[in-house]
């Protein structure tokens, strides 16, 4: 690890200035991802700007909107009554992530900003366009069992590893950002990017911009929800695929559905076509299967992740059944 300096500003402005004006500076929140990246030599900041003193921990209702501060801990958020009652899908997704110890450190902002777990990205002796643009993609011709089946490009097929973000994408959340040029609101589904030919960019946050909060609008997805995570180990493993399913069912008719997947794309992957296909239908196994098949039409698998196609169909169907049956 390089030597670096460390500051802990007390104001938002000071924190943003510290990063905006210094190319080698980085925000640090829980540090559960950044420190690993620094130890592996993937990220080499010369200054760490610790944001933990900023007043960004609040979880509260503003009218009908749930406001979640960027520094809210994953563990606190998962257990928060406002979340378990209004947005249980988010709680389930959080609890499916990492381990209790990590969730006790991990923040909402940090979780959104966590980098891919593609191992070529972490091993600095290997090619990786995301870490080192134009060095090639190690995964495309290499080991790609964990990689994307949606929205990948010829330069990168990595997936975003977060569970929390899958639920937030499904729940139409909005990201609140403050930067040198002021405040912005970004729809959650537009926050992360597809790799295209700039895989080094994970998201649309500009240099020096800080995530201050995430907001979730009121919705009817308080009961028929399910977060399914399929993984190689019962806990403490990233998703092979995951599905966030939310249904608004009334009189045995699905009024609306929200579906998003994790472990399949460079960003949390909303299944808009499948959602449409479900609207107005009965919550039956056949309809769920049909929606799942629609969702997978645009999938493209690589050497080792062929199984993700069918597994996704099965998982979408399973998550929907589970959501419908609770």
């Amino acid at each position, binding site marked *: 690890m390089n030597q670096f300096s460390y500051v802990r500003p007390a104001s938002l402005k000071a924190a943003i200035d510290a990063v905006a004006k210094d190319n080698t500076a980085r925000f640090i929140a829980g540090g559960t991802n950044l420190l690993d990246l620094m130890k592996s030599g993937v990220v080499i900041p010369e200054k760490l700007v610790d944001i933990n003193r900023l007043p960004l921990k609040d979880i509260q209702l503003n009218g009908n909107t749930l406001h979640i501060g960027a520094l809210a801990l994953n563990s606190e958020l998962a257990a928060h009554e406002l979340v378990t009652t209004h947005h249980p899908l988010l709680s389930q997704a959080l609890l499916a992530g990492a381990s209790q110890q990590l969730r006790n450190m991990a923040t909402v902002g940090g979780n959104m900003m966590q980098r891919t777990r593609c191992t070529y990205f972490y*091993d600095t002796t290997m090619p990786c366009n995301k870490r080192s643009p134009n060095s090639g993609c190690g995964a495309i011709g290499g080991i790609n069992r964990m990689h994307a089946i949606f929205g990948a490009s010829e330069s990168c097929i990595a997936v975003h590893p977060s569970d929390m973000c899958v639920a937030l994408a499904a729940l139409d959340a909005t990201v609140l950002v403050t930067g040198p040029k002021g405040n912005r609101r970004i729809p959650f589904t537009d926050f992360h990017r597809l790799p295209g030919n700039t895989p080094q960019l994970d998201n649309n946050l500009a240099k020096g911009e800080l995530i201050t909060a995430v907001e979730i609008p009121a919705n009817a997805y308080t009961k028929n929800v399910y977060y399914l995570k399929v993984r*190689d*180990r*019962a*806990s403490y493993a990233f998703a*092979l695929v995951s599905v966030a399913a939310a249904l608004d069912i009334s009189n045995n008719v699905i009024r609306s559905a929200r579906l998003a997947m994790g472990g399949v794309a460079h960003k949390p992957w909303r299944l808009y076509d499948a959602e449409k296909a479900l609207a107005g239908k009965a919550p039956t196994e056949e309809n769920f299967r049909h929606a799942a098949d629609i969702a997978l039409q645009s999938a493209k*698998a690589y050497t080792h992740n062929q199984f993700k*196609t069918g597994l996704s169909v099965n998982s979408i169907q*399973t998550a929907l059944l589970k959501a419908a049956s609770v």
Partner: protein
Amino acid sequence: MKKQQTGQSMDRVDGRLKVTGGAKYFADHQLPELLYAALVCSSISNGTIKSINTTKALRAPGVQDVISHLNAPPVPGYKNSDPNAKDGLKIFKDNRIYSNGQPVAIVLANTMERAVHAASLVEVQYNQETHYTDMNANMGKAFQNNRMKDYTRGEADAWKKAPVTIDATYSLPLEVHNPMELAGIIAHWDTPDTLVLYAKTQGVKNVQDTIKRLFQIPEQNITVHSQFVGGGFGMALRVWPLEIATIVAAKKVRKPVKLVITRDQMFTLVGYRPNAVQRLSLGATADGKLTGITHEAVAVTSPYEDFTEGIVSMSKFMYACPNVTTRYKLVPLNISTPIWMRGPGEATGAFALESAIDELSYKLNIDPLELRVLNHADTDPEKDLPFSSKYLKEAYQLGAEKIGWSNRKAAPRSMQEDGMLVGYGMSSGTFGAFRGKATVSATLKADGSLILQSAAADIGPGTATAMVQIAADVTGIAPAKIKFMLGESAYPFAPQQGGSSTVSTLGSAVTDACKALQQKLAGLAISHVPAFKNAAPETIIFEDGQLLRAGQSEKISYETILQQQQLPEVNVVATSQSGEERKKYSMYSFSVHFTKVHVHPATGVVRIKHIVSVADAGTIVNAKTARSQMIGGVVGGIGMALTEEAVMDHRFGRFVNNNYADYHVPVNADTPPTDVYFINKKDPYINPMGSKGMGEIALIGFAAAVSNAVYHATGKRVRDLPITPDKVLDEKGYQQWKLENKMST
């Protein structure tokens, strides 16, 4: 008589130290002027080092030195070795690179962080040559090692003629031991030819011996400390190049040096369980009698050593079959040398054999348990000897009863509960019950306390605790007054902790030392204590820490003898080893594993719901630590069955999941209730305690019990470990199983 100590669930004598942080592991030691080391490892897999530029590294803060083949002091023991002898990697001898991750240089600095950083600044240029790391692509290079010749009993490949046959290929991936504690060492040259080491090892005497040979200094000049070891599973059964590199570095800078390697280096520097492909062919009569077994195995090794293990051993004697053939070959690749990993080769072989037996049972329509009993070997068919003890049939019955085997419906895919497919599986395991040679020093103090010393290791099973119990029973001294000291090369010889032999070997030596001590006390009593004057030694009885004379009421305690003679202590040293009994009997431990699994019908996820493991390991010395030992082995077995695999990108020869996040050792959530039972019947021949080993059988066979259960649940046979969800589903992942009731959710 006092309460018998062996068999009790005595708490670990060092438990408190371990849970309070009082136990000092090698890396916990601090020495004045200590330097910290970090390794620079090769990023190519075959070739030579062209150049090493250390300018930047040497300029980094706190850096003392960068040592490589270019400037390392010579290792005298390398000199005379034959360049073609496959006798291991000679670190820093020349510029040859055999495998990715091979150490190229060692960087020394005044903090660990600085050393690690400086290591990243060392610039190495290579002349790269084509490398070979993929076993399947290099099967043409397979060769036979002399230690492991082909074996035939009866007719070769007789299975082919049988009316019912199984012929299947099973593969296991490369597995890494990955104990929690990272490997490393502290090396300190006290004087130019005296060396002090704080090591992570399964045998301090083995370290001493290796260093003696390589550095050509007398044994007494080498002190090895290793009182606590944070897990080994086999990876600490030899001295590795990383340790030699540290010793060489310490020699050059004449300061103590500490190296703790990184998790990713654990994949390339300290061995692994070699990946293997096995073909298992069985022939049987229609009523289930085995008529032929052929077991062929191919496993990997390094370019510079031929590593062999007992992959095909179990097939030779496990079942009463007249015709058995085994063949075993090695494929040398550009990877480091493997080493025994818990349950060593037997665990690899048992997966194939016990899966094939299960496959045969379905083909014959005979219950897999019944099929095993039907072919039970009452005597050892390989050695043609009786077993010293074998209660395998009892173990089968006990396990079957405890898991509820009778609830199992015979047909695959016939059981469901809670929206899951349900499967029951079973298997057996076996491992040689060894007894080596060890020496124990026993010192009785005037206060009646007993101190036992031997250069043994305790990598976790609770060795000292068991030895205290054994000594307590022989001497009648209360366990609280007995101390067993290990992990020091200054103590009398004990072999490495490996091969499930510690209790047998060391326990025998403890027994003999305690008996010798009693004889010495008897001698003292006979010559000095009036009531015992002129007694014939065989008339003296030892009871509860006292001496008695047959037929007389006079008693004297051990400590009173010492006190009366004003002796501060009495010491004996006894060496113990096996005798003729090993020629007359075949000695093995046996285990039986039963599992119940749930398989999700749409995602293919396998969860083990219940485990019953039964050990036939002779007398159980400590029921509590023995249970822990079994559970630990089972957890290793869960890893082998469901999660563990080191994945390599053969284009680079580098592992791509060389960390704890991506190399999946089982976590608590993977580990269901595990019920452990012991037959707990004394083996009358093996050693004075009647105890056989248990560390290996805890794991051997377990993976087959899981894959057999997965087959029973789904009708799908997975012959390629680990059984991840994608393998349970079909290639594109679409496979789904319809449940009788509603689809599972």
